[in-house]
């Protein structure tokens, strides 16, 4: 039997703008992605120095999650009941190119570890203590139908009770994050978890 599921929060970061539940919460004039990500971090002031060690894909997904979870009470769930289903088109290519450039000198383990797309999920889990299932898919473009099917299965089968899902992609100066928090509890302003409502 399918459980009722709701989108209880959304966050998108693109075109120099951060939106939470459809409303702009931060914007910047800067055109460089590195600077934009740092500016978002400084705006949010999460006090998390590890942020500066991350690659741009992890920074983007991590910041979007910070916004997404603004009013999320993680104590409501067991650590194993929260997970992620993420996708993008370029895998970790942005970091792959930077790492490959660096190996002419001395290869760095702290760069190499980010040459996997699922590290962004690892960073989100470390920050929030989430220990449930993580999955990372590579798709030519955001496949809302597929992502919804995956999340439906995890929530319907009680593998997870809350799931962060969506798209997080970086290559050079091109970037896009759109994340959704899916829960079974209907909260204020929550909308139905549907393909249409995540295909925005």
């Amino acid at each position, binding site marked *: 039997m399918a459980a009722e599921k709701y989108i209880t929060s959304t966050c998108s970061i693109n075109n120099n703008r951060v939106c939470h539940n459809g409303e702009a919460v931060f914007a910047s004039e800067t055109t460089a992605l590195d600077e934009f990500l740092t500016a978002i971090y400084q705006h949010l002031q999460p006090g998390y120095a590890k942020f500066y060690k991350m690659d741009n894909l992890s920074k983007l997904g991590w910041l979007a999650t910070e916004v997404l979870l603004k009013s999320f009470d993680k104590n409501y769930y067991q*650590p*194993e009941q929260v*997970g992620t289903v993420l996708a993008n*088109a*370029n*895998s970790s*290519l942005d970091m*792959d*190119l930077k*790492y*490959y450039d660096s*190996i002419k000198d*001395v*290869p*760095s*383990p702290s760069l*190499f*570890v980010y*040459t*996997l*797309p*699922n*590290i962004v*999920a*690892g*960073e989100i*889990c*470390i920050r*929030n*203590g*989430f*220990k*449930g*299932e*993580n*999955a*990372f*898919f*590579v*798709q*030519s473009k955001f*496949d809302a139908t*597929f992502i919804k*099917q995956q999340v439906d*299965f995890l929530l319907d089968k009680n*593998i997870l009770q809350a799931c962060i899902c969506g798209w997080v992609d970086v*290559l050079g100066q091109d970037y896009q994050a759109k994340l959704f928090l899916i829960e079974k509890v209907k909260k204020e302003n929550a909308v139905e978890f549907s393909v249409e409502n995540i295909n925005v």
Partner: protein
Amino acid sequence: MIVNNPGSIPEVFIVADNILSPIGRTTAENIESLKQGITGVKHHTNIDITPNPIAAALFETDFIDIDKNYTKFENLLISSIKDVLNISGTGYLNEKTVLIISSTKGNISLLETEQHTDALNTRMALHTSAQLIADYFGFVNQPIVISNACISGVMAILTGMRLIQSGRYENAVVAGADVVSKFVLSGFQSFHALSSTVCKPFDKDRTGLNLGEGAATVVLSANKKNDNDVKVHSGAISNDANHISGPSRTGEELGFAIKKALLDAGITAQDVGYVSAHGTATNYNDEMEANAIHHAGLQDVLVNSLKGYYGHTLGAAGLIESIITIHAIKDGVIFPSLGFEGNGVSKPINVCTSLTEKPVKHALKTASGFGGCNAAMIFSK
């Protein structure tokens, strides 16, 4: 598409499989090599990806068929899938079947041989390879690509199982591959994670892992094809939420995934006859995994790691090792964990040291990877 009665969850069987590795082009050839104790891990000096001597399981030139229209990574997948489709016969290319591809670094070696352009970015992408392979064989559905570090192969099987259980597809062709490149090699070297000799999982003298190349494919189906087809019973995934490149100190999170898989399969630790561990032979991985095995109450069950035969084949590892696990159930044969002489973990586990014949009804496959991810999967007779 609903292919089953509403409310009934179909069982999922492995109806065909292939391992393409330096020790064999088919599963049968691989099993024969394992029986003879042959390892694919060899010492290499002066190869083009590194000036330093390394121990790795690499394909020799001419061992694999190369179609010049495809990359080495894609050729490995094509060869492996071709073999399973030969075994399984026709009927797996239609709208009832989904193709799932698992890899960590796919075509990354193109950075080492090609001029870098925007077109190369697209050509390298995992979804490009997946579509090329789907088109090569004529799979009609959009392929799925999983890239979840070293649990990719196990996760790909789990994803296929779920897509069949949910009634979305009747069959899944699940293939994984990875190639050893200068890129990957330099990264593991930078971690000081590589052993200069054949690796020794769980051993007191272990000094790290070997990298390996390989591909493997399973055909999953809701329709049993042969009497002895093994069932994909259950699986679970967890995250350590601890460190992106170091595993959990306690192993509780992999332990959780194992316990969840046991619960879902409706079996107890006593029912498990064999554990195919990730066993990379790094200090941290093996220590964590032994802890997890204890957490799940499996410390007395026969365990091996196949990394001494194959090296760590990354996105292919979970598939290659699952296939050997499936054949342990079919044939009642468990291979010795190559390189193991004496216990090297705080909480000892029952590592298999000689070719053991015993009936196995249920077997567990585990995997863990960067990003703190863990996977556990139960296969059953």
